[in-house]
């Protein structure tokens, strides 16, 4: 098993983000996580990315328990796990080429990382990844000059360039138009398929999740509601997942015809 969570729960201060999650994902599986806002999708991904330690329960990734490792060994494990952020945290003044090359910092020695700042070590490799995402012409542009969707693609390019064994994606296409989102998800899936990478993505667009991922997990209020192959997910299950009893759309008030003509 690449990923094994047993009774893992997570607290952020007073908020219980995840309740006793049990989850097993095998090598090379491609999984989508769906659920309403605040359901715990991001928290689950942070748990899987070793960004946060579980409050209780156990996490096992690539057959090791990250939180029982020394800090150095955990950093080496983290280099094998890539996380695509919803809003990629990239310094505005950094060039795209540097931002993408930074994906391999976990595999490089510190000295190599510093030399790479003076002169980018692998421009062809970066260009190849960016080309697959339609961003090749932006390679020497500063990140601050990119749009939200372009930044997301730089974030994806960095994670692909990292060549991790587990690829986690937190809403990777939320700032893209439908065509680009489709293309980027295809690129991600193709990359994962070709290299046998385990891909786990949280998505708010259900139809994208069902179309691109063989396995779909529904999360609600910090618990797994269903975990099925995409073909078995029914519309009843989706309705149950997204049902919101607190949210009642207020009836639209009639526009009050109370014209005030300003006198100048």
């Amino acid at each position, binding site marked *: 098993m690449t990923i094994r969570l047993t009774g893992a729960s997570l607290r952020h201060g007073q908020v219980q983000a995840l309740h006793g999650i049990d989850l097993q994902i095998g090598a090379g599986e491609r999984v989508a996580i769906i659920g309403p806002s605040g359901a715990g999708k991001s928290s689950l991904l942070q748990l899987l990315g070793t960004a946060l330690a579980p409050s209780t329960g156990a996490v096992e990734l690539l057959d090791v328990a990250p939180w029982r490792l020394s800090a150095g060994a955990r950093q080496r494990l983290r280099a094998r796990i890539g996380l695509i952020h919803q809003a990629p945290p990239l310094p505005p003044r950094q060039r795209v080429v*540097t931002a993408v090359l930074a994906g391999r*910092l976990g595999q490089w020695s510190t000295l190599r*990382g510093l030399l790479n700042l003076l002169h980018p070590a692998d421009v062809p490799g970066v260009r190849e990844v960016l080309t697959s995402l339609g961003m090749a012409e932006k390679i020497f542009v500063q990140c601050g000059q990119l749009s939200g969707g372009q930044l997301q693609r730089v974030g994806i390019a960095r994670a692909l360039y990292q060549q991790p064994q587990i690829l986690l994606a937190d809403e990777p296409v939320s700032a893209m138009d439908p065509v680009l989102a489709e293309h980027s998800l295809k690129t991600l899936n193709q990359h994962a398929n070709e290299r046998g990478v385990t891909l786990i993505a949280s998505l708010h667009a259900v139809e994208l999740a069902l179309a691109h991922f063989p396995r779909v997990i529904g999360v609600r209020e910090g618990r797994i509601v269903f975990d099925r192959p995409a073909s078995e997910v029914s519309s009843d299950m989706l309705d149950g997942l997204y049902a919101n009893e607190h949210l009642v759309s207020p009836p639209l008030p009639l526009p009050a015809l109370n014209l005030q003509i300003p006198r100048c």
Partner: protein
Amino acid sequence: MLKVDSRDPAALPRVLLALLAIALLWPGIRLSELNPGVLLQADNRREMATFLSAFWPPAHEPDFLRLLLDATLQTLAVATAGMTLALLLAIPASLLASRALSLRAASRGGRLGFWSRTLRLPVRALLIFLRSVPEIVWALLFVRAVGLGPTAGVLAIAITYSGMLGKVYAEIFESVDQRPAHALLQAGSSRLSAFFYGILPAAAAELVSYTVYRWECAIRASVVMGFVGAGGLGQQIDLSMRMFAGAEVASMLLTFLLLVWLADQLSRLLRGRLA
């Protein structure tokens, strides 16, 4: 009608705060024995007038200008060498003291653990110690130790300024957006790499601006230390003042103005390149 509408609820507290500030400042003025009236007494006025009237025209004999150039270069050299030595200590110390590079904080949403905080304390304490003694005091000590001359000034600046630079650098690192560095740490990068790729790009302009400003301060400090025998422009001013050579003092003050202006231009240029 307008009076009620335009009433600012913050007006009364502001007036009261202003009155409180004045009430607190007044005893301060009494305690510091400030008495501007002294300036206006007839004797003092005449003294000042003769001294100031000698300011124009500023001294510009070739011999004096050569002396001035030498002294200026010496002052610049003292400031620059002192800053370089200070940076050698300040940069590693700021990296150690800054919470921005804590691996533990990166995986706890920015909160530090007990050990992360405790182990940073000695570095912070060292920086506090280095900057708590004014550079002029260090200069007096070093003049005793290594004798009159610029060496004392260089060492004094190096010690005091490493404390100031280290503290402020560490705080600049903490004040920029931490998410890029945390993201890199979570992808397995080393802490130094995370610093260079995640923090430095955002902090560079601020760091350069502060460093150039500190260099400007170091120039002024090296002048002051000249008065206690650490060479450079300060020593020349001291001599000229003792000889009531107002013209020479005026030339040297103009040189100061030029140096500070140049430092300002340099800072602006560098910031413009980095912004």
